[in-house]
């Protein structure tokens, strides 16, 4: 093999890699390898100066292969491929060594992490020498979109897409559109009616000529890849079940959240004390226009307790983000429904981070809501009151600011239940092949830079299925996902890597073992020549035929035997 001129770049990723891995040590080791003409470490390889460094070196030093030891190739392979292309060499002359997700983030510092980083980098160095240029292949981008979930977010995304000209298949499991927002009365902090907003959305969605709404339906399966998915939608109406297949180019997952089950918290007596209710039960009262106790009495005292199921080790460590403002909204609505009612608000920290939220909090304080702060883990205790107390229940709270134990009366207690991932989020994740975090929320491609895309190309997530979110943030995500999809749809085609299998006719013995193995029927048999042949347009590059060929006549482009052998040698050297 001719001598390569390889450049190796080791990314510090700020301290993400450098804290655990001796990046300069990895560089020094790489620099000694045959074919390596330079090895550099840099703070952020993906930054503009980092990419410029590669481009300049390719041009000035005549590099013909590049190794970047950095994050996962799932993150920045496209970035660095583009840099190679800009510099005028094939983008496929790149190999990345994953020394962040699969090294520095999962190992303690010290020699072991550095040794592994050296090995992974060496694997990449050995492999990249065998890289060959590949053409990009252009495939059609189907303009249709599948939206899973007919709540506020799903409808918003569907409308944006439909307005942009896409055919949208909106699949909702329930009998009605609207999701959780349809269960809400007013919204914080501007006190707009959720019902008005949802009704307007539902009307537009149902009437839009480009949106097909599937109620009582679920997505049975999703196959294919970006631009060319096939979705099966199963619908059940009474005892009639139908199943239809649709072609879609992209998918928006907007499956939302479910509320925390308050009965899991035993100390507030939910389910035992009849007038301890959840926030959604209170919304129901508000929507019905009747704020009263189970006995039908007007409450003289109401208490709102924050962080039920959120921000504690026992249930969920995260903040559910919407409850603080919703609690203030309840204080406001209680006061308007029952002006004489004394409202207490028992909180841990008041999270008033959003636009208009702090003002809303101030107005709540001025409206004589009694705010009582309790410490995390030192939750208030509710007990049934005696007839002499003149109220239904008594709440004992160790007030943090005054450091006093205070007892407050309550006829109605509202538990601010948090959000949690839906029980079937695992099934949905598997259906569309995306990841979930430890709490069950779907994971974005990048938490800051790419919040609605996922690691599976063509699958987008929006709203509370990715983490607790309020309506404005969810709407922004719905529209962002729609915009991302429309931007790709406008082009009409999408370039994908031209990785496919190839048969070497001289080596093929015509045994036809591969013919039946291909899940895409991409291998045809030429009766005249008695040779098998891969139809590249149908091949998806899984490599099943390559591994099975007894004469090693089939090559998997970009995953050739020699490339993988070289990488094995490298990681073990």
């Amino acid at each position, binding site marked *: 093999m001719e001598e390569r001129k390889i450049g190796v770049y080791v990314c510090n990723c700020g301290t993400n890699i450098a804290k655990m891995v001796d990046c300069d040590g990895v560089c020094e080791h790489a620099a000694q390898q045959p074919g390596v003409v330079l090895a550099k470490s840099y703070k952020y390889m993906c930054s503009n100066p980092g990419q410029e460094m590669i481009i300049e070196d390719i041009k000035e030093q005549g590099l013909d292969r590049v190794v970047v030891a950095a994050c996962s190739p799932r993150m920045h392979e496209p970035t660095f491929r583009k840099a190679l292309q800009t510099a005028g060499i094939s983008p496929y002359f790149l190999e990345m060594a994953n020394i962040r997700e699969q090294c520095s*983030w999962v190992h303690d510092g010290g020699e072991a992490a550095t040794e592994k980083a050296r090995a992974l980098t060496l694997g990449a160095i050995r492999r990249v020498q065998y890289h060959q240029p590949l053409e990009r292949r252009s495939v059609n981008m189907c303009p249709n979109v599948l939206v899973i979930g007919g709540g506020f977010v799903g409808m918003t995304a569907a409308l944006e897409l439909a307005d942009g000209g896409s055919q949208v298949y909106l699949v909702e499991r329930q009998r009605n559109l609207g999701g959780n927002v349809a269960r809400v009365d007013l919204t914080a902090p501007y006190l707009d009616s959720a019902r008005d907003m949802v009704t307007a959305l539902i009307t537009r969605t149902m009437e839009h000529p480009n949106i097909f709404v599937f109620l009582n339906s679920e997505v049975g399966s999703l196959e294919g890849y970006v631009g060319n998915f096939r979705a099966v939608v199963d619908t059940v109406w009474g005892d009639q079940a139908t199943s239809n297949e649709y072609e879609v180019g992209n998918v928006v997952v907007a499956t939302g959240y479910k509320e925390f089950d308050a009965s899991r918290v035993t100390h507030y007596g939910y389910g035992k004390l009849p007038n301890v209710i959840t926030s959604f039960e209170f919304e129901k009262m508000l929507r019905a226009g009747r704020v009263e106790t189970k006995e039908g009495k007007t409450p003289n005292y109401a208490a709102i307790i924050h962080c039920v199921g959120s921000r504690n080790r026992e249930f969920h460590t995260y903040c559910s983000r919407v409850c603080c403002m919703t609690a203030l909204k309840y204080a406001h609505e209680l006061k308007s429904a029952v002006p004489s009612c004394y409202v207490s608000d028992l909180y841990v920290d008041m999270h008033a981070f959003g636009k208009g939220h702090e003002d809303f909090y101030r107005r709540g304080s001025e409206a004589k809501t009694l705010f009582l702060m309790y410490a995390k883990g030192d939750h208030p205790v509710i007990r049934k009151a005696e007839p002499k107390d003149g109220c239904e229940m008594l709440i004992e709270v160790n007030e943090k600011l005054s450091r006093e134990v205070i007892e407050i009366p309550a006829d109605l207690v509202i538990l601010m239940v948090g959000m949690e991932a839906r029980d079937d989020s695992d099934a949905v994740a598997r259906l569309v092949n995306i990841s979930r975090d430890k709490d069950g929320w779907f994971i974005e491609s990048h938490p800051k830079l790419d919040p609605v895309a996922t690691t599976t190309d063509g699958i987008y997530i929006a709203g509370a299925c990715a983490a607790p979110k309020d309506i404005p943030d969810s709407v922004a995500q719905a529209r962002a996902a729609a915009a991302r999809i429309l931007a790709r749809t406008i082009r009409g085609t999408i370039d994908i890597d031209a990785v496919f299998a190839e048969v070497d006719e001289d080596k093929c013995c015509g045994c036809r073992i591969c013919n039946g193995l291909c899940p895409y029927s991409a291998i045809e048999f030429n009766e005249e020549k008695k040779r098998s042949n891969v139809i590249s347009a149908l091949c998806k590059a899984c490599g099943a035929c390559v*591994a099975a060929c007894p004469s090693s006549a089939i090559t998997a482009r970009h995953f050739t035997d020699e490339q993988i052998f070289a990488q094995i040698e490298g990681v073990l050297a």
Partner: protein
Amino acid sequence: MSYEPKIVGFLCNWCSYTGADLAGTSRIHYAPNVRIIRVMCCGRMDPTFVIKALHDGADGVLICGCHPGDCHYSEGNYKMMRRYPLLKKMLADYGIDEARVRLEWVSASEGQRFADLASDMAQRLRELGPSPVQVAQATDMAER
């Protein structure tokens, strides 16, 4: 220094490699013995990759693919599932302990599972000691 086994991991691009990345983004720590090589599908696993790895110094090989039924290519994992017993049988004939080559399913959301597998396999191999291939090669070298 105490003996630390070397493991080569072959992970499918769609589920398991993403799962291993998830272990990273979730900062789930595990034993550093596994060096991961990405393949598009575990159906691409040519048995020679395993033999090559064992020959070149690996004490164990961990092959991970999508759970049965979840393969990005519909059925690549089933192909590997069928090759695997034959491979194991052959390796057994060479006196290679079956714990040294494992086929496991790791989905894109199973970062914890991957981490546990990696640590578990490292521990198992520590107990087993160096691969007989390495021992034989070392003896061979010494005799020369």
